Structures are given as C-alpha cells and as structure tokens.
C-alpha cells in the first residue's frame, strides 16, 4: 500500500523540499520523459540564479518600483472592533500592481526565463488573475505570451480575457476535459512538451513538478518576510495567528513560510467549501480529497475511487483547483498548519463586511480567509493578533457578487 513512512522528528519546517523535490511524501517530479530534461534545466538554472545577488537585486528593483512593494501592513481597526476580539492586521497585497499577489511570482519567473535565454512564455489561468500577471510581465520584458484558459472560464471571465489581450497576450481556449483550470494546465504542459527549445512555462501556483512548488513559494515569501518585519516594528511581537485562503496555495505559503519555525505562531489555511463539503461541489482538496499524483506532483486531490480527477467548485474562480500545493499537504499531515473550509455564502458575507467596515472591496479569494477570521477573532483576547493576507482586490468580482446576491446590474 501507499502508507506514508514513519515520520522523522522535524528540526525545521523551512528546510524542504529534499533533493528529490519532496516535502515528506508529497511533491516530486511526476512528468513525461519529454519534459524531464526541461524540468531539470529549470531546477539547475533556478538554483544558480537565485544565488546570484544580481538576480535578487533585479527582483527587488521591479518589486519596489513596478509592483509597489513592500505592500502595507494595515491594522483593520473598525473590523477588529466590529468582531470584538483579536486585533486584525491585513497584509495589503491587493495593492500590488495588477491587484493581487500573483505578480510576485510572475516577476520572479520571467527574470529567470530571461536569464535562461527563453524566448516564449506560456501560462495557464483559471479566473485570469495569473494570466493577467503573466501577460503583464511579458509586456514589461517584451516576450510573446500564450495563456491557456478553459473555454468555460473564458466565458465567465470576459474582462480578464480582454485585459490579457490588451497586454499583448494570446489567449487560447481549452475545450478538452471539463474546460477549466486543470485542463488549461494540461494544455500548457502539452504546449511545453511540443516547444521544448524556446519556451518557459510560468506556473501560477505552488504546484507542478519540482522545482516549481519551491520556486513559486520562494518568490511569494516576500509577503511573509515583509509582514513579519512590519509587525515586529509595529507591535514588537509576532502574530498569534496567520490566516490565508488556499486554492493552489501560493499566497498562503508565501505568508506562512517565514513563520514556520516560530513555534508560537499558529497558521490556518482556508479552502473553499463551495456549496458545502457534503454537496460535492467544493474545492477543498485537504478536507475532501485524498493523496494522488497530478500535474507533476503528489498531493491531496479531489478524485473519485478510481483515481479520476474531479472538478472543483467555488464562487471564487481563483480557488477553483482540484489540488493543492504539495508543501501544504505536508504541513497538513505534520500538523504544523491547520486547514479549514469556508462556503460560498460565508465568503460572500465576509466580502460585504470588509466593504462596509474597512472601505476595502476584497477579492472573493481572501474573503474566504476573512470569513474564518470572523469566526475566530471574537473568541480571541483583545491583545492577540491575527495577520491575514488580503491577497487580492475585488474589482474583478463585483459582477459575480452582484449575481450571487441577486442584484441586477
């Protein structure tokens, strides 16, 4: 059977992955032979360039002057008072250029692609946020960009499709399978196999074959590194609780990772429970899935008894993925991080609460995180601190929210 081996005592939760790209039993390099030389090339190049101070300097330069980093750490005073418990801080990654955390990663990967001499960029996208973030950096660095997007998602996310086109990207509809994010990822992998010489694949979340889960995490840890420093400056203490939403899990790992060895800091990842975990229409891979192998890594997946991948559902298109980054699966099994699930309705309520109390329209993704904050903050003491990643802004979601609330626009 496939039972996990006996766990060894863990000295640091930040040491992974191992040389095989594993976090415990999760991760790995489960790709076709055609892709193996490429995946190994990306790994070699990544390790070489990340050690180069020039690479870091270039990343920092664009992060500051183009993305607008560091993003502020903001004390949500009215919301904290409204909930009547812990002090709630928002890490304001929704103020980044393009309106979400996604660009931290696409910036890092395109700098790598450029150094590797790649001349063509491909990406997959679900809601279009990663597609927009990729198209943006491709425009910035003058590289042709092809974005694969499920035909179903293209219909649902017309404004983002137009944004990508404005930015010069070619958006290719994917009609195979269920025509959603997972199929877009399959199609991007197929493109990569056929264009191995000149193409770099910018994966949007902490999934895919090694080194992607590590690489995407490293680029996103800018969130947690800044937040940790900012909170120490502001409060002279570490937070009691970190909260972040999880689709693939890139914003969550970006926040969590720099705190993993701070034993007093609890962390909770919030998955999308869609219409409820019992309904079958959800995107909670940890709460409702089992370990399996897809898109190059072993992780928790929504799948049936026969190992066929099932479709995810969430009101938030950005959480709508049937898997989760392998490092989260490991943090889940080791118990270092906790994971909960929040329904569409709970997220909608939190979305409105945030608008009303803070004057911030959040994306539906972090509205899931906020819904969990709303549950736990009142039970915490006033001097305790919750740090939540507000990883995206909600302009893109106003139509979906209006529709869900039954308000004709």
């Amino acid at each position: 059977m496939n039972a996990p081996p006996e766990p060894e005592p863990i000295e640091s939760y930040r040491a992974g992955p191992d040389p095989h790209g594993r976090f415990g039993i999760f991760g790995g390099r489960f790709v076709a032979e055609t892709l193996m030389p490429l995946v190994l090339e990306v790994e070699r190049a990544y390790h070489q360039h990340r050690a180069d101070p020039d690479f870091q300097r270039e990343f920092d330069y664009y992060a500051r002057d183009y993305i607008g980093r560091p993003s502020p750490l903001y004390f949500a005073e009215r919301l904290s008072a409204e909930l009547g418990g812990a002090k709630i801080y928002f890490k304001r990654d929704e103020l980044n250029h393009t309106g979400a955390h996604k660009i931290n990663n696409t910036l890092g990967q395109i700098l790598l692609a450029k150094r590797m001499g790649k001349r063509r960029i491909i990406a997959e996208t679900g809601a279009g946020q990663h597609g927009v973030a990729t198209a943006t950096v491709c425009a910035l660095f003058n590289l042709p960009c092809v974005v694969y997007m499920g035909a179903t998602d293209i219909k649902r996310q017309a404004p983002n499709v137009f944004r990508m086109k404005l930015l010069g990207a070619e958006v290719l509809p994917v009609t195979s399978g269920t025509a959603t994010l997972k199929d877009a990822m399959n199609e991007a992998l197929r493109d990569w196999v056929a264009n191995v010489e000149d193409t770099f694949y910018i994966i949007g979340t902490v999934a895919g074959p090694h080194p992607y889960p590590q690489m995407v995490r490293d680029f996103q840890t800018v969130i947690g590194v800044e937040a940790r420093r900012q909170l120490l400056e502001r409060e002279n203490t570490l937070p009691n609780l970190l909260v972040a939403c999880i689709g693939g899990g890139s914003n969550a790992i970006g926040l969590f990772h720099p705190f993993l060895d701070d034993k007093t800091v609890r962390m909770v990842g919030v998955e999308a429970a869609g219409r409820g975990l019992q309904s079958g229409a959800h995107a909670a891979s940890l709460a409702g899935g089992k370990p399996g192998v897809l898109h190059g890594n072993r992780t928790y997946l929504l799948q049936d008894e026969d190992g066929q991948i099932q479709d995810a559902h969430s009101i938030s298109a950005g959480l709508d993925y049937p898997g989760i980054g392998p490092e989260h699966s490991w943090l889940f099994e080791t118990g270092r991080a906790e994971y909960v699930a929040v329904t569409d309705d709970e997220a909608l309520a939190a979305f409105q609460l945030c608008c009303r109390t803070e004057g911030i329209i959040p994306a539906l993704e972090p509205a899931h995180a906020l819904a969990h904050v709303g549950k736990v903050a009142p039970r915490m003491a006033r001097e305790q601190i919750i740090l939540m990643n507000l990883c995206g802004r909600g302009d893109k979601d106003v139509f979906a929210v209006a529709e869900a609330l039954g308000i004709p626009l």
Partner: protein
Amino acid sequence: MSGRGETHSAAREADANANGGDTRARTRTRTRLGRCFAKLKQQQRAGLVTFITAGDPDLKTAAKILRGMPQAGADLIELGMPFSDPMADGAAIQAANLRALKAGMTLTKTLQMVQQFRAHDAHTPVVLMGYYNPIYRYGNQRFLDDAMRAGVDGLIIVDLPPEEDDELCHPALTAGLHWIRLLTPTTDAARMAKVLRHSSGFVYHVAIAGITGTGSAKQSELKKAVAKIRRHTALPIAVGFGIKTPADVTATAKIADAVVVGSAIIERIADGVAKGENGDAVAAQAHAFVRGLAGG
C-alpha cells in the same frame, strides 16, 4: 505476491540489461514479450503495435476490438488505462479517455478486459499504458498482483520518469512485469543511460517532441535517433507518435523493431461512434484499418 526471493524473468532481464550481462539472450525468450520479439526477429520483420484505450467507446465494443487485433495483424497490443487528465496525449486519445470514462470504465474493468482477452489468446503481449494516479489510488502492490494475474506483460506509465523509480518501476520488475520506458528527442546521451537502466521488454522511442496524434518525424532524423539508442541497448526498439498510414508503417518498419500506431486507430473508432454505428461495425472498421497497416 512475489517477494524478493522469487524474482521473475522480466526483472532478471532488466538486471541483465543494466549490467550488460550475458544472461540477456537466455532470459529474453522467457517472457511473452521476449518470445514475441524473438519471433519477429526470426521472421525478419518489424512488429506492429496497436494502441487502443480500454473501454472506448464502451467496454463491450472495446473488448471486441481487442480480441480481433491479433488476427487483424497486431503483434503486440498497447492498452490505454483511461484517465481524466492525460497530459501527454493529443485530442484523439484525450477524447477516447473521456468516452471510456463516460461509459463507466475503471481500472478494475481494464484488468478484467485483459483477463478475458488472455482466455482466448495466450501469445499476444499486452502492455498497459497510462498515468500513475489511478494505479496509486488502486494500491500499487494490489495493482501489480492483479495485473500479473490478468496476464498483463508490461507497463508504460507516462508520468513516472526514472527519478521516481521507487514508486512502481522496481516493484513492477520484482512482480515480473516488464517496465517499458519512453525515450524522446529531448533525451540526451547522459540521460539515455539513466532511462535505459531499468527498462525491460523493449524501448519505446517517441519520434517527436510533442503529444500523441500530432506531427511526424523526418525519416532521416528517426534513423539517427534509433541508431543512437542501439548504441546504448540491445533491447528491441519500438517507434511511435505521428505514425498514421500504411506508408508510415512501412517506412518506420525499415528502421525500428516495432511500429506503434495509436491515434489513427482511435480516430477510426471515433468516426464510427460519430456516425452512430453499432459496436460490431466500429470494431470491424478498426480491424480493417489495422489489416491495412499490417500490409493486407
């Protein structure tokens, strides 16, 4: 269940291949796959490998197609295990996977299909091809035991590269199944040794860098690629991807020990389904097409 002590011949052959040992020739004919290639060599011709997806378009029709394949001219059969997300496959085989799943195909039924085929045909090798997740879910050792019992000869698991050999490759060889690996135009000389190390039965050279059912390789490039592989292994070499017509088969047969045709057969099945033909007619067309490939 086979323990370490009773290593079967497929595994022994793999070891022999890895060590370049002289037991190679002796062990080669001990498996159905070995005997198949020995016979082909004797007949001085390349084998025809036909790929179909188990359960496509439905279990009954697929079983009929499988059963008639040897008579139509298939020397070896590759049977696809349906998966919802076949990342290395083009449109034709993706569609076949979905047709099969929609018709209720499962890994259990795929193994039963092989078992039923074996009841009628003790000679034609059957190699299962697919993706790891359904096997992982089924349970690796349970799958290997059931596959051996059903009369499966080998496995081609697309998303298990040598880096992940501990998962299924080593247990499969121990169980007595051949482990057949893909070599691609992106496999360089250094990597080739690694890929061939635990390969057994035959080597599958993917003629193009790409997915199934798309472009074709130039014969000159193919010749060079196959010659390069021959310098590294004595295993028979099958060539697939982009081989669609009898002329393609004839040309590739001059270079390789076996020629794999997949998407082109699947497209005949899809055509029949699209026209609303019954299972017998669909199977008959698939067989007629394979007869054409086999040279009449």
